[in-house]
């Protein structure tokens, strides 16, 4: 069923009785060519591109709970490609280009809104670093503008420009950045993958891998054994737990990152504003809630909730940046599991086990990468070669020394 304005109109006239479930609920087949473990954004995107672009068939996505129940439904929905290093920026820019065409590709309204992302700077040194970053972005085909204080003031006059510790001196603006309706990303990819013949198996938890002589044969699941020629794991947040079942230790710690939403307010914040020096970033959802967050709590956690010191830290950052939000009431807050890799950059690579592939280590930046992550992971699964934008995301890069320390901040900022 294709969605269109005409379809919406017709269904409106018929009392909306013609809508059907948009993906099937199949029983597992005994064997598939490709199994994707993890029915989140990255896993569903992988299945979509594997079926649609790489024309593969006999594909299943295995999800422990229901699709989109993990980090794709728990993030703060920002898309951007403002990275510096060659190992990262081409991938994220590829991702942003895919976001731009996503709704047409999926025939699904994901509410992609390129409202711009503004990183604030507070010193000459930081402005120089932003200029360098902006130039690196432009060299990789992205867009970037360096704003001076007056330009920032014109755009967001409500900020505290004379903050004693971090006076705002300018900013790096990426106009093509913005926000996306995160749940719709999971649903859109699921619907499209399903329509290309992918089996989406929910409530199907992987409990073990069958590996013979270094070759993966299939997976044990809560719905029985399923054979597979190739298995791709995209379960960021729980990567260590899943890959431990295949006997692998990863350069990853799981940490908790908290996010917050205020009550709905009238349109107030034009795009995304980041206040890196104060560990705070904010945007406004289409429903009017202020969506904001800050740093990880800083200790290993699988609890999907954080502690109060970081809540205080984030809210202090918000008050320092825009004192006016002090009157807004907090509606809810929650935590998500972050695969914190040791250099702050992700992995999309083979594993030492033949036929087993790994996608993870996204730290707190996985959502923006969803389309490209799926695309390049599908490329790796289909061709056994890394996609040209993902050649540096190797699992063995700490051994080889080819780390991608974008901000020098993985789980601990002192590791590399």
């Amino acid at each position, binding site marked *: 069923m294709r969605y269109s304005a005409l379809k919406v109109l017709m269904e409106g006239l018929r009392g909306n009785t013609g809508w059907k479930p948009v993906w099937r609920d199949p029983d597992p087949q005994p064997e598939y060519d490709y199994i994707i473990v993890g029915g989140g954004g990255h896993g569903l995107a992988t299945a979509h591109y594997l079926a649609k672009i790489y024309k593969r068939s006999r594909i299943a996505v295995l999800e422990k709970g229901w699709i989109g129940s993990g980090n794709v439904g728990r993030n703060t929905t920002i898309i951007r490609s403002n990275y510096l290093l060659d190992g990262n920026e081409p991938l994220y820019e590829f991702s942003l280009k895919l976001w731009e065409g996503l709704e047409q590709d999926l025939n699904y309204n994901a509410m992609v809104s390129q409202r711009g992302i503004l990183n604030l700077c507070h010193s000459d040194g930081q402005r120089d670093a932003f200029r360098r970053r902006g130039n690196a972005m432009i060299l990789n085909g992205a867009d970037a503008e360096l704003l001076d204080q007056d330009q920032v003031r014109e755009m967001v006059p409500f900020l505290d420009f004379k903050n004693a510790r971090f006076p705002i001196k300018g900013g790096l603006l990426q106009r093509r950045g913005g926000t996306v309706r995160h749940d719709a990303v999971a649903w859109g990819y699921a619907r499209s993958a399903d329509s290309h013949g992918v089996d989406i198996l929910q409530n199907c938890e992987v409990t073990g891998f069958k590996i013979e002589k270094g070759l993966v044969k299939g997976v044990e699941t809560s719905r029985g054994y399923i054979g597979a020629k190739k298995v791709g794991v995209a379960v960021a947040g*729980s990567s*260590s*737990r899943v890959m*431990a079942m295949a006997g692998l*230790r*990863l*350069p*990853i*710690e*799981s940490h908790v990152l908290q996010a917050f939403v205020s009550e709905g307010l009238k349109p107030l914040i034009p795009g995304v504003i980041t206040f890196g020096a104060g560990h705070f970033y904010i945007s406004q959802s289409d429903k009017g809630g202020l969506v904001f967050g800050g740093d990880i709590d*800083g*200790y*290993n*956690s*699988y*609890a999907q909730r954080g*502690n109060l*010191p970081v809540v205080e830290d984030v809210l202090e950052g918000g008050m320092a940046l825009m004192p006016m939000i002090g009157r807004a009431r907090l509606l809810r807050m929650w935590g998500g599991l972050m695969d914190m890799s*040791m250099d702050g950059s992700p992995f999309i690579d083979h594993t030492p086990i033949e036929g087993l592939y790994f996608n993870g280590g996204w730290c707190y930046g996985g959502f923006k990468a969803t389309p490209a992550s799926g695309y390049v992971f599908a490329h790796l699964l289909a061709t056994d070669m890394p996609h040209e934008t993902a050649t540096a995301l190797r699992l063995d890069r*700490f*051994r080889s020394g080819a780390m991608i320390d974008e901000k020098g901040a993985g*789980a*601990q900022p002192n*590791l590399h």
Partner: protein
Amino acid sequence: MIINHPLLGPRDAQEFVYLGDANLIDRPDPSSSTALDDFHDYLYLRDNPAGSHRELWFHEQGDRSWLVVTRDTTTHEITHVELASEYAKRQGRDR
């Protein structure tokens, strides 16, 4: 989180800095023939369990002692706290 310091009693976790897995105490032998691999594993690889986790916390805004805290990573419940020096001695280290 409240960490029950063995010398100072219950202290807010905010006073502490987190380092990570307590296995970081067991530094590999640099003169070993497998030192390169050993140090790679030591520095970068983690067990990262969901459940009971022994980890190093530094009481930076307190008595500047290193503690080994046993904490459940799924509930944040702290079940055991001891001085890292005592933990290390029990592992066979001289200090």
